[in-house]
């Protein structure tokens, strides 16, 4: 009886570890539609470069940078934020990424983000896209994908 209980507990522990880590990388497919927004933006390296510029713009923006102070101070939290942003843009643009973070509503719950703060964030993203000379059509397409998230972010 004791032995079977031990085996059960061991099996349960192993399964828990596997399941806890199961969400990361399974479904990644690297087949890319050459006409997708992802391809037109320039792929993962271009999205990564724009994301870094976006983060730098946000960090220098006194309207909102205090919101990110704790994340910026911890390299691992920053890595999670950066990867989530890249995954979000990449997936939304039809690229081979999968956003693994919380929903926008969950992530911003209790933050009481104002419309001005949201507008400042969008302004920082637009400035990053402009710096890399992203054409107007691609820029508007991307903003059209990310824009609807506003209702889940502002005033929560």
């Amino acid at each position, binding site marked *: 009886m004791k032995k079977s209980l*031990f085996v059960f*507990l*061991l099996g349960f*522990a*192993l399964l*828990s*570890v*596997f399941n806890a*880590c199961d969400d*990361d*990388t399974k479904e*990644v497919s*690297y087949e890319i539609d050459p006409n997708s927004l992802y391809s037109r933006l320039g792929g*993962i390296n271009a999205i*990564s*470069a724009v994301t*870094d*510029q976006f*983060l*730098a*713009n946000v*960090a*220098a*923006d*006194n309207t909102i*940078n*205090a*919101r*990110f*102070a*704790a*994340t*910026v101070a*911890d*390299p*691992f*939290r*920053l*890595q*999670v*934020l*950066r*990867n*989530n942003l*890249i*995954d979000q843009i*990449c997936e939304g643009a039809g*690229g*081979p*990424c*999968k956003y693994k*973070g*919380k929903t926008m509503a969950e*992530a*911003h719950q*209790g*933050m009481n983000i104002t419309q001005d703060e949201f507008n400042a964030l969008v302004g920082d993203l637009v400035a*990053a896209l402009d710096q890399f000379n992203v054409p107007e059509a691609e820029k508007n397409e991307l903003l059209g994908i990310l824009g609807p998230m506003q209702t889940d972010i502002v005033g929560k």
Partner: protein
Amino acid sequence: MKAFIKKSAIVLAACFGVLFLYANLRPASLTESLDPVHLKIFSLSAAPDAVRSESITTALRRTPGVTACSVNAAARTVSVTFHPAEGREEIITELIAAAGDLEVAEKTFPPTPVCPVPPLSALKNQLLNALKIF
């Protein structure tokens, strides 16, 4: 009691072993395969004029390891993202000071109660990174 401790130790060791194997054998996603960056925010002793702002931006962009930078003259703030393996904070600080002819210090913020990235997500990331040796 002794048997319980022994069995618990075996279970914990097995969990650690599985986590270690997972950290090292799982295929990294496209995003995880990117080099990580650090982000630093600096305060300037005075607002730089347009020429000095441009000088700071140019100097930072030329620096190996720097992936992005932003100079907000009105807010006397400079932010820099860089690959920690290539760039060092001290060098970046000196570079901003020299290019802008200003005193530079790391910007501090009052603590904020809520942050969009929970510490637990970062902890999982940190644990997997610590276990990943191959």
